[in-house]
């Protein structure tokens, strides 16, 4: 018998040793994984995974302790010790499933506290009162036998323990659902990685469920979960090494999609939505129910473009008054052999920008229309001016001509009084004609329609003949005023509009004559470098400094000017603009009581100036 007993003992000790070895291996692997994960704890999920592995190790440790213990008290202690691992692992798994591949959860410890409260209370109760009604019912030691080399602690499960099981498995279920959801939403390498990690983590759970359900029996209802931790840890470790589980990449990529303002929709090869980011929720109203649905059905504006090609489109949505604009990029996802396995759809809301662009376009086209209208109005004005000029003059010309015929006695004899009256009519008519000319000129200048009739090489001496003749005629009525001509011989030729130059000179001279009652009116013309300097000087009342700028403003006259009351007040403004459009300058120098001197310059002919003025005339 003793022989047999020893044999049994030999067999038992071999089995026991093997079993212990397995358990230790499992413990060490769990610790290695924990260490490996802890080193990478800066990545979301890694720290939790390390904690998870530590719990596995604790469970295994308790398991080994219980195996090794012989007394019921020791066995119960180690049994209670295992609870630290077994009740905490599902919680760790749940928190890991939330964390992994996402942004770091804030207030992580709160979740730990919330979820661990119940397990911790129960653990404490079981430790403090191992044989109480909440802990173990009728605990006995079943001694080692042929079938079971270890003495086993056996007890009935109290109701509280069943409630704990329900709690723990609920937490586990939520964790698994979350992991599976994440597997569905993950892509490529991250999906494979998640599947392997989940599978690795599932093994002890399956073993645990199997033990509880009585499917697997080893050494008398012994829970084999801790034994599987080793295998599970191996798979997870391999996955970690192979796919670098906690590398920044998945987190960063996911995080980019999470925080970016553009919507990201991931479609499978059948164009069903398999993933979307938070922006898609905000922008496109994507809900969890969208997953698995056809993108074209959910978003009809995408339907026409789902042809698995790489492209970018612009879409306009919503009502016409407040449209929304999206810029949509389609990127086909292909596997290593070029098979399409989905499309990445990036939707950018460009409403603000597009609306601004459209508003600008509208504004631009409105401005173009306004400019066209202005041009049309300008043309009409130009034509109106031309026809006014003609229509006003024609009857006035007839009046002047017929009056002249009568005054000259062509139509019969007229007496002196009649001739005098008729001449006054003619003078008034001519004055009216010059007023019409001035108003038309000023209007043209003001509207930028004054065009010079430019000729090169104007001989100023020839032009002066008529000016001097007119000046002498004007002065013939003022014998107290002498006309002085101080004109250089052989003046160079000028470039410009002859008629306008004569107009300026006549205007200045007639002004001088008008305001001078005695003394002289001097016309001087000198060649000064690149300019010809014209000066008309009088010995009239002069112009106060305050009035000197006013006289060049259209429709303004000084007190003196108004007293003389012949003129429109346009002569000087017109003259100034005419000189300036020739490239010259017109100004006045005067002291009240000491006469006035009007100066103006006209550049002498030069090829550059010719071109410039001819261009202006054309424009």
């Amino acid at each position: 018998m003793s022989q047999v007993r020893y044999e049994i003992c030999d067999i038992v000790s071999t089995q026991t040793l093997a079993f212990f070895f397995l358990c230790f291996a499992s413990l060490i692997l769990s610790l290695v994984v924990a260490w490996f994960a802890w080193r990478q704890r800066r990545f979301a999920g890694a720290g939790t995974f390390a904690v998870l592995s530590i719990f596995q190790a604790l469970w295994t440790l308790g398991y080994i302790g219980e195996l090794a213990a012989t007394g019921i008290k020791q066995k119960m202690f180690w049994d209670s010790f295992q609870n630290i691992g077994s009740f905490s692992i599902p919680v760790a798994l749940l928190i890991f499933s939330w964390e992994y591949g996402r942004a770091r959860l804030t207030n992580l410890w709160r979740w730990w506290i919330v979820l661990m409260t119940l397990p911790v209370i129960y653990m404490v109760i079981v430790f403090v009162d191992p044989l109480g009604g909440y802990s173990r019912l009728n605990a006995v030691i079943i001694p080692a036998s042929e079938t079971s080399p270890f003495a086993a602690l056996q007890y009935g499960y109290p109701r509280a323990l069943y409630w704990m099981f329900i709690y723990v498995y609920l937490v586990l279920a939520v964790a698994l659902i979350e992991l599976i959801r994440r597997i569905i939403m993950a892509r490529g390498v991250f999906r494979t990685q998640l599947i392997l990690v989940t599978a690795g983590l599932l093994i002890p759970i399956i073993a645990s469920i199997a033990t509880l359900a009585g499917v697997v029996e080893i050494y008398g209802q012994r829970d084999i979960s801790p034994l599987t931790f080793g295998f599970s840890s191996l798979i997870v470790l391999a996955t970690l090494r192979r796919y670098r589980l906690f590398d920044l990449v998945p987190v960063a990529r996911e995080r980019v999609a999470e925080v970016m303002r553009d919507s990201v929709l991931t479609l499978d090869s059948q164009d069903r939505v398999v993933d979307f980011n938070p922006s898609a929720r905000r922008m496109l109203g994507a809900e969890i129910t969208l997953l698995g649905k056809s993108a074209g059905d959910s978003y009809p504006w995408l339907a026409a473009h789902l042809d698995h090609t790489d492209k970018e489109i612009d879409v306009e949505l919503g009502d016409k008054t407040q449209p929304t604009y999206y810029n949509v990029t389609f990127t086909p996802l292909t596997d290593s052999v070029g098979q399409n396995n989905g499309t990445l759809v990036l939707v950018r809301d460009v409403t603000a920008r597009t609306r601004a662009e459209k508003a600008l376009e509208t504004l631009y086209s409105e401005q173009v229309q306004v400019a066209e209208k202005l041009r049309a109005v300008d043309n009409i004005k130009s034509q109106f001016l031309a026809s006014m000029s003609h229509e006003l003059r024609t009857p006035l010309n007839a009046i002047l001509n017929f009056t002249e015929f009568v005054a000259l006695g062509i139509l019969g004899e007229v007496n002196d009084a009649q001739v005098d009256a008729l001449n006054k009519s003619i003078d008034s008519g001519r004055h009216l004609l010059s007023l019409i000319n001035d108003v038309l000129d000023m209007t043209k200048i003001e509207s930028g329609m004054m065009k010079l009739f430019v000729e090169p090489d104007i001989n100023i001496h020839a032009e002066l003949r008529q000016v001097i003749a007119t000046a002498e005629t004007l002065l013939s009525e003022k014998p107290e005023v002498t006309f002085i001509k101080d004109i250089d011989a052989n003046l160079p030729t000028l470039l410009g509009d002859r008629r306008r130059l004569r107009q300026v000179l006549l205007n200045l001279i007639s002004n001088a004559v008008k305001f001078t009652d005695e003394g002289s009116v001097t016309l001087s013309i000198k060649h000064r470098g690149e300019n010809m300097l014209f000066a008309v000087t009088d010995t009239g009342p002069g112009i106060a400094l305050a009035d000197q700028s006013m006289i060049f403003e259209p429709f303004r006259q000084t007190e003196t000017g108004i007293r003389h009351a012949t003129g429109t007040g346009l002569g000087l403004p017109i003259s100034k603009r005419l000189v300036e459009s020739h490239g010259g300058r017109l100004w006045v120098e005067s002291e009240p009581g000491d006469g006035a001197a009007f100066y103006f310059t006209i550049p002498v002919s030069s090829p550059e100036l010719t071109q410039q003025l001819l261009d202006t005339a054309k424009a």
Partner: protein
Amino acid sequence: MTPMNSLYVEDDPLSREVMRMMVKRVPHIANLTIFDDSTDFLTRVHQLNPTPTLILLDIHVYPMDGFTMLSQLRADPKFSQTRIIALTASVMNEEVSQLRTRGFDGAIAKPLSLQSFPDLIARIINGEPVWHII
């Protein structure tokens, strides 16, 4: 200098009357034919014999304006020696520069003046360019 045959196209009756009176004081013009219709003028001018030496054209004539008449006259070699002068009440620069570029031999601004008109005609007949536009 021989007095010459002249033509005048003018659609304003008062202007025609003024010209009729005026031309009596112009020794160089012996015979002035006045047309009141530019279309009528153009149909008949080519057949006129002897060829006129001076043609005065009003610019604002309807239906065909002075420029149209000028270009038709210039197209006929018969009028290569004829002096063609614009008479215009318009002093718009754009028009004045057009008168020159389109090929008028000169221009006289209205109102015509008995004091200057005979002299201007004399200068034109002498072959001087006359741009009396102020």
